[in-house]
């Protein structure tokens, strides 16, 4: 499948996806009607403040949403197949083989009593039961070197590895099965800045080498500026803006994106000497504000913003840059909500 607007091959199509948590205070829409594509071989940065739904969205891509939450609507088309129609067995094969997920803390994802090679061999054998152990071990050996870990670390237990190495092993578990997409949810957050920088270099190299798509979920917008091809900004469970990373950084079209970008500290001395201070806090999603969910904090809010929700539409006809904001789309004239 090709995207008409960009000519790039679409790997995942998310259409109108919603995830609802059923809480004592009523239903909470953590992800609300989100639509976007992930292209093959791209690094897509997904950013937003805590509670904006970015992690929930990442999990929903693998249908890893457990009660009291549920995927309450929408479709996920992965490589032309609707994974919402998969049964549990198909999903189990899909997870790991097609999509792999890396979390913030690798120690909770790796088995503490399994050695590195055992992890990799197990992953191969679960998904490809006919592969003999010797072949699996050989693949583990090549893989570990690709990731910049010395071969003698294969017999180590997770606690013997450093934080950066553990995350590399997690990446390896996805790569060994030739996954098309890696969802990295704050995967570098607990690492020191030098180790983080090296893991990011690794992400870029693997993307180039294996044409891997990476969904980089992070609160650190600077990381996205450094390695992503496109950026998606979420606010209060909705997609606020999405587009090419250079376009969005140079010319953000959603006031939330603009505020967020201007509040990021920059280590360069003569740049951004004063940080922008965004007022207010994200809304309680059991009772989100009417209209645009950002309007109570928006410096440019207009009358219509509190009345009617905008749509995620192209900015000035550019189909690769979408914004969810009334400033970027014509206001309805004949309705009572008109300004």
């Amino acid at each position: 499948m090709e995207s008409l607007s960009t000519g790039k091959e679409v790997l995942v199509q998310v259409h109108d996806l919603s995830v609802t948590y059923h809480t004592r205070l009523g239903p909470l829409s953590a992800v609300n009607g989100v639509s976007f594509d992930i292209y093959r071989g791209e690094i897509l940065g997904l950013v937003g403040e805590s509670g904006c739904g970015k992690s929930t969205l990442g999990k929903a891509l693998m249908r890893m949403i457990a009660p009291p939450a549920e995927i309450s609507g929408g479709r996920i088309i992965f490589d032309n197949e609707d994974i919402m129609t998969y049964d549990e067995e198909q999903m189990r094969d899909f997870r790991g083989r097609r999509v792999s997920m890396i979390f913030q803390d690798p120690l909770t994802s790796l088995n503490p009593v399994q050695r590195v090679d055992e992890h990799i061999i197990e992953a191969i054998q679960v998904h490809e039961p006919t592969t003999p152990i010797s072949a699996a071990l050989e693949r583990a050996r090549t893989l570990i070197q690709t990731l910049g870990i010395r071969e003698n670390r294969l017999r180590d237990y997770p606690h013997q590895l450093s934080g950066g190495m553990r995350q590399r092993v997690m990446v390896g578990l996805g790569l060994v099965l030739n996954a098309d997409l890696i969802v990295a949810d704050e995967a570098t957050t607990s690492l020191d800045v030098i180790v983080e920088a090296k893991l990011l270099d690794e992400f870029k190299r693997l993307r180039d080498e294996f044409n891997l798509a990476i969904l980089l979920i992070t609160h650190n917008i600077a990381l996205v500026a450094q390695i992503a091809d496109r950026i998606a900004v979420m606010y209060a469970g909705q997609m606020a803006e999405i587009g090419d990373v250079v376009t969005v950084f140079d010319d953000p079209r959603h006031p939330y994106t603009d505020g967020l970008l201007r509040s990021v500290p920059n280590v360069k001395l003569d740049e951004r000497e004063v940080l922008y201070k965004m007022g207010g806090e994200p809304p309680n999603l059991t009772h989100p504000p009417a209209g645009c969910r950002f309007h109570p904090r928006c410096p440019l809010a207009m009358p219509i913003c509190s009345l009617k929700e905008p749509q995620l539409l192209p900015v000035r006809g550019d189909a690769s840059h979408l914004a969810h904001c009334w400033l970027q789309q014509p206001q309805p004239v004949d309705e009572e909500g008109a300004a």
Partner: protein
Amino acid sequence: MRVIDPTDNLVEVRDLTKWFPVQQGLLAQVFGGKQRFVHAVDGVSFEIRRGEVFGLAGESGSGKTTIGRVVVGLTPPTSGTVTFDGIDLSTLGSAGLRSLRKSMQVIFQDPMASLNPRMSLGRSIGYGLEIHNPEMDAEARRAAVVEMLERVGLAPANYFYNKFPHQTSGGQRQRAAIARALITRPELVLADEPIAMADVSVRALLLDLMNELKRDLSLTYLFITHDLATAKYICDRVGVMYLGMMAEVADLRELYTHPLHPYSQALLAAVPVPDPHQRRTQPMPEGEIPNPINPPSGCRFHPRCPIAGSICRTEVPTYRALRPDHWVACHYAERYLPSGD
């Protein structure tokens, strides 16, 4: 802005060393050889000038938090001295230390862990006054707390006074933790990663608040951070630590433009710049920070250092000033001096 006098030191740290014994199993205790130690801090000297924000930066395991704890007297050093306003902390007993704590307060990273979940914010904040100013009556104490709540931006103060930590947002809790630290009118505030947990939009607000309070209340901060980008917005001088040793200390602007230690250079280059037009191209040093139980010989950074020579493996570099007020511990730092020096 208050002018900082470079000879007026509020805190002086000299040859500070802090080792922690490694817990050993029974067999190792009976048959094993020597007790082993984690070399958390090894021979560090620096001073904090009255009215400045001194930043301590470094990766996890560099010893920056341990230094902070020793400076405010939360833990005694293994050797070396800490002097606060001319008083050597080691000469004080526990009562003397307690009365000095009024002048040295701490803001921690996680406000949920530093505020008592069963006390209202007002009670938590006023608690320091109950201990350090017992002569104050309840009414005066309440008035002081209300004033401090307003100062830190928790208004209306009477509303927040009765709130419990779980009823407030992360940013509000950190403001309360700042109020709790400042209520005793300290001179020195140790801020250990005070904004690392906050969202990016809240960080800017907290930094602003800390700068404003410093000015209004004539504070001195020891600001511990792993993030040199954040340090830029608050620190006057910065010390870069590596594996228990001070690699480099300089004025912030000087350090960021002329880092003389290869480790400071790597650390500065590793900070991601939020601009897709400025992507990092230089490679990062090999490996990760080693185990502080058996630190490398010579210069501790030598196994990862791109310019290490044979002397670096055997000799500990001297900590020396290569430019005015710019100290560095590297055998080859001269080659990074800007031309003209």
